[in-house]
């Protein structure tokens, strides 16, 4: 057999430096090792760590460009406050005074309103410690409303495996990879290297997504489905497999709860419903099921967004029915599944049960057919630019808010809506533990000191808790009012059932990373019973009632196009908009329109366009591309709409609608 030895990589820096710091990139959840070279405490070069087992010396655009944000002239580095939004900020105040003022105003709201009047939005940009600190503070306060894009709405159901899924480095040894709404080439480029390595070894790559993505351009088999129909695709795929009896009979017998009728639920589905619900033809779907059935091993990799949509459990059912859940180099890999179950607030006694309302449900990614909710909040603590991202649905309710606190780094919409600014330390400015996609635990060393008065999320929550007399629940505060990050994460590791046995001192001393669980045998012990249910067996996911019935979105008459938004390769968080190198790579105002639809509407490449939905609209610049389907509009800008109408600036919406209707007719 021909064996391939790649060229020897010769890494290093040519620049003069007086200090070198090894750390971990936190722009996404891959956890790439990086070496920063500093001269007079300024980063002069960043290189990947060649020996790092996950990244092997590679870094993506974000992992290189982040240094531009640290010393950006527009960065918020001092706390500030104002009484009303019409006033300008009173800057140059210290943290203590800013926290005193903010806590006083919060206390007044707490005395007057119900406990759920406080809502907290945690953007990944603010750091893991901000999210975990927010959960402790919220528990002390009594509000259930703490939201983070990584928070799984069905954490208990999504991965009820006794042993965690195999790490992404194992993808390289699989025979087949099925990626569903997971554009890894854009969101996790370094991890996508493992997919390409598998392909180079002969693995087949099947990509199913809402538009033709960079990931799809590498696929052996690519399918474009309707936006938001990823889990529905899984249900139809299960039907196709069962109909041709391609499931692994022994795996079904060994692992499923004995329920003879479950296959009948799929038999009852009418193929007529496939095209309206997913946009696929029966032939195309059968092709995929036959292709998959012939594979000795396969990984199913699903995007984070699917976790917030109904029937997410179908992927575990599918992998179990095909026998992949128990085979090596196979299984289900929901993205961001490297996070263990955090047990960061159960030591705090809850207030009286009747006073705690339920959380508002899945927030970060709204299902298109969601019901309107009214959180009736009076105070909001927000980080990053969450009001322009996963908190978009809260924007209509903002006018009722009496107090908005912003913990972030750059001016943005959320900052504009706030009464108090608290400057956030960037990930390169704080020590911390990283939980990567690969279930790796790594200690990320601080690379540079925080700019001016910037502090970590744990500093923020500890300071705020002190002012409410809850300092005993935040014992990590030190004499200089800064939180002891190592002490906090050491405490956290011991409290999670997944990370028990993992010692922080060992992780900090390790060359690169350690995996959770501490017992590595659990990873290879993949034998039945392998599910965390009482019986050790899995209750198969069934198609919901009315599934497959022909549905027509209510707004389709007035808004005939579907709207879809995803992240782009050069930006993971809002801070990335402020890096000049990253900003010039991709237009954040781009609006992708299919050339056929653009022709009907008289839109040309580069035209200024308006994308309008029932609740709101955005402006952008037309990018004519066949990456989107004929009736789909895409943009990196988040818009709280699933149905839209697009028209050129200066053209009336009615004219555009009439032209599209004529085309439909």
């Amino acid at each position: 057999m021909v064996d391939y030895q790649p060229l020897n990589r010769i890494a290093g820096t040519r620049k003069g430096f007086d200090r070198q710091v090894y750390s971990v990139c936190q722009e996404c959840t891959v956890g790439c090792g990086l070496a920063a070279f500093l001269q007079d405490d300024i980063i002069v070069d960043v290189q990947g760590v060649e020996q790092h087992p996950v990244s092997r010396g590679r870094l993506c655009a974000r992992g290189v460009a982040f240094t531009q944000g640290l010393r950006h002239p527009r960065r918020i580095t001092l706390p500030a406050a104002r009484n009303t939004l019409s006033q300008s900020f009173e800057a140059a105040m210290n943290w203590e005074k800013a926290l005193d003022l903010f806590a006083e105003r919060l206390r007044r709201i707490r005395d007057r309103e119900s406990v759920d009047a406080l809502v907290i939005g945690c953007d990944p940009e603010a750091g893991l410690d901000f999210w975990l600190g927010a959960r402790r503070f919220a528990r002390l306060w009594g509000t259930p409303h703490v939201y983070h894009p990584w928070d799984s709405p069905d954490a208990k159901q999504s991965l009820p495996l006794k042993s965690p899924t195999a790490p992404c480095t194992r993808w390289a040894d699989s025979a087949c990879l099925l990626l569903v709404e997971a554009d890894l080439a854009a969101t996790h480029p370094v991890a996508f290297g493992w997919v390409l390595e598998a392909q180079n070894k002969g693995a087949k790559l099947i990509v199913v997504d809402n538009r033709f993505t960079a990931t799809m351009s590498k696929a052996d088999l690519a399918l474009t489905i309707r936006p938001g129909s990823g889990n529905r695709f899984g249900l139809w795929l299960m039907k196709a497999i069962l109909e041709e009896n391609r499931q692994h009979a022994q795996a079904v017998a060994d692992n499923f709860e004995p329920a003879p009728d479950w296959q009948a639920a799929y038999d009852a589905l009418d193929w007529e419903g496939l095209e309206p619900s997913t946009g696929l033809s029966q032939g195309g779907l059968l092709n995929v099921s036959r292709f998959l059935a012939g594979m000795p091993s396969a990984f199913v990799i699903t995007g984070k967004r699917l976790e917030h949509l109904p029937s997410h459990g179908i992927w575990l059912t599918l992998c179990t029915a095909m026998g992949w859940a128990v085979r090596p180099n196979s299984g289900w890999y929901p993205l961001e599944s490297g996070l263990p179950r955090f047990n960061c607030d159960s030591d705090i006694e809850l207030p009286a049960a009747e006073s705690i309302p339920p959380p508002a449900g899945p927030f970060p990614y709204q299902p298109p057919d969601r019901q309107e909710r009214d959180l009736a909040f009076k105070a909001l603590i927000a980080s990053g630019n969450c009001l322009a991202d996963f908190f978009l649905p809260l924007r209509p309710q903002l006018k009722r808010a009496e107090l908005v606190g912003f913990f972030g780094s750059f001016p943005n919409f959320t900052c504009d809506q706030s009464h108090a600014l608290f400057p956030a330390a960037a990930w390169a400015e704080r020590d911390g533990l990283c939980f990567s996609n690969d279930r790796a635990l790594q200690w990320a060393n601080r690379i540079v000191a925080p700019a001016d008065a910037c502090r970590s999320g744990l500093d923020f929550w500890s300071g705020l808790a002190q002012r409410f007399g809850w300092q005993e629940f935040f014992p990590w505060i030190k004499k200089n009012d800064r939180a002891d990050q190592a002490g906090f994460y050491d405490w956290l590791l011991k409290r999670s059932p997944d990370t028990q046995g993992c010692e922080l001192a060992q992780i900090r001393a390790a060359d690169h990373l350690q995996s959770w669980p501490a017992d590595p045998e659990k990873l290879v012990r993949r034998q039945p019973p392998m599910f965390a249910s009482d019986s050790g067996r899995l209750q198969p996911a069934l198609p919901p009632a009315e599934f497959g019935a022909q549905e027509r979105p209510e707004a389709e008459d007035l808004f005939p196009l579907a709207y879809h938004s995803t992240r782009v390769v050069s930006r993971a968080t809002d801070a990335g908009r402020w890096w000049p190198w990253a900003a010039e790579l991709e237009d954040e105002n781009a609006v992708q329109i299919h050339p056929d639809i653009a022709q009907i509407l008289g839109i040309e490449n580069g035209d200024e366009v308006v994308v309008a939905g029932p609740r709101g609209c955005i402006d952008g610049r037309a990018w004519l591309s066949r990456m989107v389907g004929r009736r789909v509009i895409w943009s990196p800008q988040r818009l709280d709409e699933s149905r839209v109408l697009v028209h050129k600036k200066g053209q009336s919406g009615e004219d555009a609608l009439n032209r599209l209707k004529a085309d439909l007719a």
Partner: protein
Amino acid sequence: MTPTRKHALMIDASRCIGCHSCAVACKMEHELPAGPRTVKVIQIGPLEADGPPMMRYETVTCFHCDRPACVSACPTGAMQKRPDGLVFSEPSLCIGCQTCAVACPFGIPELNPATGKIAKCDGCRERVDRGLWPACALKCPTGCLSYGAPLRVVQDLRMREAVTIARSIAVR
């Protein structure tokens, strides 16, 4: 002493995922502002022609031509070709006239608005003089870019193709 041993940058477009890591790595290495793109990643497609849509990315940087038009055109001698083949612009001699940009058939040289001088790929000459890989190749997350002696690079390309063919017909 300027090295005379030639090296080659291999671009395997089939592995490019359009992540722009190379472009940003180059900017960081040479401390360039927004504007000049010394390494460009160009998306082609998706195109639909008698089959499923096709899309690919092409990484484009200076070809360091054997007979570079930019060097011949430069009125001050700033644009030079080293014995090892690297074509670069010497900042102390460059007057920012952009004659090289007009002469280049590939549109490679661009004006750096921060310095008023030409910015172009110099093959990371200071890095390679120290025996290091160029920044773009080192950061590439997929192996699209790799670097080495021309014979070894060609051998690498042949080996990759041979392995791909061998593995595609092998029973896994």
